[in-house]
């Protein structure tokens, strides 16, 4: 039997994603539901004298009550199943099954319109996957959609704004990114060390690289590297960019000794980068890194070991 290839799902264009989001906007739960409950309670109150007068009438009322309970629990089960499907799509995105996660979130969006939190989660999957797959234009659409719906002071809003600035830099929207980073600086300065400030430092580093400020970035390399640590393996991208800045500084240096120092720093940082992220992934995310010399040789990942 032929099973569909999960990777066959095409990345949507920005226009297609915007249309999909417009066609299936989140809908707030209808307030009429609480009125229905009140109406039922009122109705029971009204007919209660009749029920006491003719107790046999309680039978149809009890049956109607049981049907209502059955319908309600069915709806609850349905909502629970839907939540599980959205969580699964998110987990697949985390596990880097990007296309399959995207396909599932795409199909779920029309079904979760009446669940604003699940709707938001589906759009988060779009933003994350499209960003990872270098579909930056569409990722920006998803991120803008999120920013319209998440309160400004919410940590998720700060994270999305950072991701958005990064995506804008990756798609050469430098002015847009510069504006976003300026606005973020005040917020980030108030935060304790952690992934959010680290993400800000990474975005600033990307900005330096894209605007050609290699020497500035190289000068701050040690401090920036320390700031990047809370990003986990994603810090590898930062180390790669720092290595690139050192490499460019070495190429531009007039003094042979300074060039040698920068070259050694570049090698050390590139080693760190490739310890955390494979070179192909580094170059896929930041095209400048294709220019980095392939030294040192690839590390022995567990995949290369007999037990892997």
């Amino acid at each position, binding site marked *: 039997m032929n099973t569909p290839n999960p990777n066959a799902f095409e990345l949507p264009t920005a226009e297609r994603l915007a249309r999909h989001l417009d066609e299936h906007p989140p809908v707030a739960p209808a307030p009429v539901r609480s009125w229905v409950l009140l109406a039922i309670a009122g109705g029971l109150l009204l007919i209660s004298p009749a*029920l*006491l*007068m*003719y*107790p*046999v009438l*309680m*039978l149809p009322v*009890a049956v109607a009550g049981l049907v209502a309970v059955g319908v309600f629990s069915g709806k609850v089960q349905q909502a629970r199943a839907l939540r599980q499907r959205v*969580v699964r799509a998110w*987990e697949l995105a*985390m*596990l*880097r099954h990007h296309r399959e996660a995207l396909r599932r979130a795409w199909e779920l969006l029309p079904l979760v319109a009446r669940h604003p939190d699940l709707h938001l989660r589906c759009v988060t999957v779009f933003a994350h996957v499209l960003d990872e797959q270098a579909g930056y234009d569409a990722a920006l659409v998803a991120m803008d959609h999120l920013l319209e719906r998440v309160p400004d002071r919410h940590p998720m809003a700060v994270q999305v704004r950072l991701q958005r600035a990064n995506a804008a830099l990756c798609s050469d929207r430098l002015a847009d990114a510069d504006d976003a980073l300026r606005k973020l600086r005040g917020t980030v300065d108030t935060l304790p060390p952690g*992934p959010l400030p680290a993400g800000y430092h990474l975005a600033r580093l990307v900005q330096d690289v894209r605007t050609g400020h290699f020497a500035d970035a190289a000068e701050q390399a040690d401090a920036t590297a320390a700031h990047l*640590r*809370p*990003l*986990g*393996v994603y*810090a590898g991208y930062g180390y790669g960019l720092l290595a690139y800045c050192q490499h460019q500084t070495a190429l531009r240096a007039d003094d042979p000794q300074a060039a040698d120092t920068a070259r050694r720093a570049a090698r*050390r940082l590139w*080693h*760190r980068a490739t*310890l*955390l992220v494979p070179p192909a992934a580094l170059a896929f995310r930041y095209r400048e890194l294709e220019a980095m010399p392939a030294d040192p040789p690839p*590390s*022995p*990942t*567990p*995949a290369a*070991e007999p*037990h*892997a």
Partner: protein
Amino acid sequence: MNDTAPQPDHAADPPGPGAPASLLLPIDPAEFHRQVAWGVGYQRIALGLTVAAIAVVLMLPLLLPDQDAQRLPALLAVLVVPAVWVPLSMTTTRVARALPMIGAALAGRPAEAERMIREQLARKPVMRWARLLVYHRLATLRHHQRRFDESATICQLVLQQPLAGPAASARPHLLLMLAEAQLCRDDLPGAYRALDALHRTRLSLADAIQRLALQTRYALKAGDYDHALAHGRRKVELAELMPAPQCGAVHAMLATAAHKAGRPELATWLWERAELLCPPQLMLELRRGAFEVEVVVPQDGDA
């Protein structure tokens, strides 16, 4: 599960952060069983009375043909249902509403969490699922306080009960806490049983990642280094989803396993990654042997 869990030894444990030992709620398995049985008994009686009330209402026309005579028994039958269910529902709702507040207080305000748990445990009657969830929060609090004997005891007590309804979602977390508590108490058979139960439980990605860390720690403690390294690539990929410090700690554990299993290149690679991922303070703790880690890789100053 470990059926022969030792009784908590308050005198031997140092008081956990947040509250002095004398103020801590005592963990008494007999009291736990009494509380749960009380709620279950009340619920059964309420259900029985409801069924009886419905039967009375339905059979009234047969038993009392005179409609005027039917009114009083019908009224009593109808009143019995809210009279038994409303107190149960109200107290259960109050407990359920307090649960998120307890959860929010667990990490930063343990004394407040302790007070709220004490209040909720004093409420009666409460449905079983709500009572069990309060005990789940108490186990979490004791776990945060590093009182692993008590945490393990509560986890075992709760896991022995049928976890249905909203309480079912607490099962993976209870098993994870139990496995970690048993590892901290050096009870390897107990940890194995908890990990085995986790393997038979459907887990979310977040829980699966926690299980990976515990399983690796267990394998190191048990000296089963090859098992720790099995499916290494997948383990590393899952560890990468953790926050940086935890990710680094798992790398350090795997590096120790690789070294012990005689795979120096892999050990070096994992250790270098750990050094990049862990904050300096955690690295210091790992070098001192935290999480069964042994410093096994010569430092070349590269990473």
